[in-house]
């Protein structure tokens, strides 16, 4: 769908503001995301490099003496709006920016597994299915019926819980509307401190517009992420600018 196509409703630009001062790093969003999107429990061989995690929480350490020592950084697909790196490099058109929702959509049926998008993503927010997803016997009964498990050999990522968006669209259609409104992704629902606010950047009266001063991680890249952060701690702003967002790195020595 081209960006100039006329639609019968006002396009939305769904996005998030994550308050890093509220995040306690509990990981509720991580598990809620995995359960909602039918991500299989990690097999014994899986680690932080080869597992499927659509949302990760990184631990950040304050390099300066001032302020809090640690902060936690939830990071998922940032839904970049400008020259979206993964869309640009995909040879299969398996990644698209939906103009009606502003969500960067991944279509596993088109994906050939080249992983160019993983290389291009500045946030490392994409995962590759190295094997077929599998659950212990009987546990398939706990799969979310609205989400198809992805097959081996394809890339996947956060899509702001498309299944919930579709459910909202269905509910709106029943009421004669085409506008799904503001729905609630699983991570937003699970966050015990309400650190994640979900809304529409196009809505001047919406929750995102009222979020106050926000910043993007790696803003300098100019990809205009729709997931933004807020914090009163200067060291986090500085870290976001210079891209020091990596998780606490394992230091090799010897």
């Amino acid at each position, binding site marked *: 769908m081209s960006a100039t196509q006329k639609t019968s409703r006002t396009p939305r630009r769904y996005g998030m503001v994550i308050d890093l001062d509220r995040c306690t790093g509990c990981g509720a969003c991580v598990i809620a995301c995995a359960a909602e999107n039918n991500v299989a429990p990690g097999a014994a061989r899986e680690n932080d490099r080869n597992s499927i995690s659509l949302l990760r929480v990184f631990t950040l350490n304050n390099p300066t003496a001032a302020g809090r020592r640690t902060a936690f950084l939830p990071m998922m697909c940032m839904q970049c709006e400008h020259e979206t790196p993964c869309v640009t490099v995909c040879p299969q058109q398996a990644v698209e920016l939906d103009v009606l929702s502003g969500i960067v959509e991944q279509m596993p049926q088109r994906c050939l597994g080249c992983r160019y998008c993983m290389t291009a993503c500045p946030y490392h927010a994409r995962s590759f299915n190295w094997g077929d997803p599998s659950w212990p016997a009987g546990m398939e009964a706990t799969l979310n019926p609205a989400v198809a498990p992805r097959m081996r050999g*394809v890339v996947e990522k956060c899509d702001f819980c498309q299944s919930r968006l579709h459910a909202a669209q269905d509910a709106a259609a029943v009421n004669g509307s085409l506008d799904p409104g503001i729905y609630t992704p699983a991570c937003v629902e699970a966050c015990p401190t309400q650190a994640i606010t979900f809304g529409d950047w196009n809505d001047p009266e919406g929750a995102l517009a009222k979020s106050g001063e926000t910043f993007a991680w790696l803003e300098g890249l100019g990809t205009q992420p729709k997931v933004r952060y807020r914090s009163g701690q200067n060291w986090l702003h500085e870290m976001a600018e210079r891209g020091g967002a990596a998780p606490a790195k394992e230091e090799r020595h010897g």
Partner: protein
Amino acid sequence: MAIGRRELLGLAGGAAVGGALSPVPWKLLDDSAIWTQNWSWTPTPVRGPVTEKFGLCTLCAAGCGVKARCGSAGVFGVAPAAEHATGGGALCPVVYGAHQLPYHPRRLRTAIVNGHAVETKEAIAEVARRLEAAGAKAAILDERPGRIVSALYDRIARAKGGTVVTLAQVEDRSLRTMEDLAGMGPGTLGYDFEHAALILSVGAPLLDSWGSTGRMSRLWSRRVETGKPVFVHAGSHWSRTAQLADRALILRPGSEAALVAALAGKLAIEPAAEITGLSPASLSDLALRLREQAPALVVGGGEAASSGLPEATERMIAALNVAIGALGRAGGIVMRRPLTGAPQPPQYLDRVPDHSLDLLVHEASSAGIVAPEALLRRKLAAKGTLVRLSAFLPEAFGPNDVLIPSTTFLEGAEDARGARDAAVETWSYSDGLSSVPASALPPAEFAAQLAEALQVKVESYEELRKARAAAIVAAKRGHVYRHAGGERAEATDLEKFEAAMAEGAVWVDEPVEPGPLRAKIDAVDWSAGRPEQPSLIAVASSPRGSLSVLPAVPLASKLDRETRLYAVPGEVRMNPRTARELNLRPGDSVLVSTPFGETRGRVRCDAAAIPGQLELGACGDGSQLVLEAMGAAEPGAGPTQAAQIRRS
């Protein structure tokens, strides 16, 4: 031209090399890989109508409200019940994957007696026989006291001369000492955090799934918005709470008593600073704040995956609370009414004399409660029997043990009394949202069958539930919160009360008007020893709610191994500097030993780890050895242990 063997071999070799260099085999490989992508081994979810039902989380005693999303095949998702009085719209992280627990590979599907699979009825008859024989030397371990089934356990134990005991959870440890000093019964005090201006945690993991997640999360959110309450954490290691607190004071291990004595004015600042390793200025400042930033309160207890502080230190904390006026004051430690219709609270297992029991019936139907195996075993006599009602196979079991399969998360009827730390009692119940497997017994059914085998006459679960509902309504106190729309109604009409509760509502008692309470603190011993300073300490790390004798929620792997948010089970996390000093390299197999035990693991270096601190992942399989090494079965062993490490 003659074609010989040499030519044939040359042709075959050339064809093989040429074929391999052509695109054909690779295209075939690629096509077959793509073709098999959609074979039936990728599961297809069962489609069908989706409904939402309210239930209770039974992973701990708090009983937070959950909203379960149910499809044709059963529960496929869990969300917090926004208006629940205990959960308050928040749940522990592992609860979001707890609906997968019924299908855990370690699910117990048959009763086991002395290592042999038997019919459940036979196992219960055997338990009855041994319980009868043990008489007064029998105890029932009720991990979540105050439930309806607790009344059944109480009747059974009384009828046969035994006792009911419970575990002192991390939230209990400070409150029970204060209750002892105030001469009040178990469960009669709670924390009024909501009105506190300053909360000092002495080793308590207040911001790491302590108490009910919803309550602490609400407090944390309020602190971000208003700056109150101020969280100050004093502990011997950099825990998650220390990382998040407004102010963290890292003490020398074992010097908590000196800190508390100095804050109470019973020890001069200078020597206390020397013992604790803190600066005199920070100690004086904290002592001043505790008095001026009223209402303030102090919480002890230690970490969930280790033992609490020594009883003497807990008594000092209780006396400090009295000294700063926190006892009986709004924003402090307040009195709460006992739950209407509930039996007398049981005594704590750690206070039962060692090797004094011939039989211990452990109701382990909750998957998230920390029950150190070593503590259970130590209370049993040499040939004592441990009976476990559990949904999962434990890591290990003894030759005399009896295992009976139970229900787990969202299976079968359950009720919950509410969080131990809450300022008021709550009560809610659920009939279960998933079907009960044929082999599994809900706790109430287990108690009823055991009573029948023992020929003890007890009311049915339903009768007891109705009786408690009637008692609550007759008391004319408190309110009922309904999930739908968050309606609040008076608990005055039994029919309406039962109808609301059946839909998953929660009854909340009225708070007791804060008033002065007395506690005998004259006898508190304020002497603070000078602990030895180990060069290396061990700490246990775990997302609460998945730490127990039972296996972890499958998706908990996302929190440790797959995202490194918590220490990985079987790994020893340390700072690279510490590893260099110990001449260890990442991946080395090591043996960590403490005064209480040993555990093995592999070295993982992480710049975020604190130098001189070994972080042991205590979640899922192998966690019992970590608990043992951390002295979790030794009351008062403290949250950190001096450690030694060597290659294994």
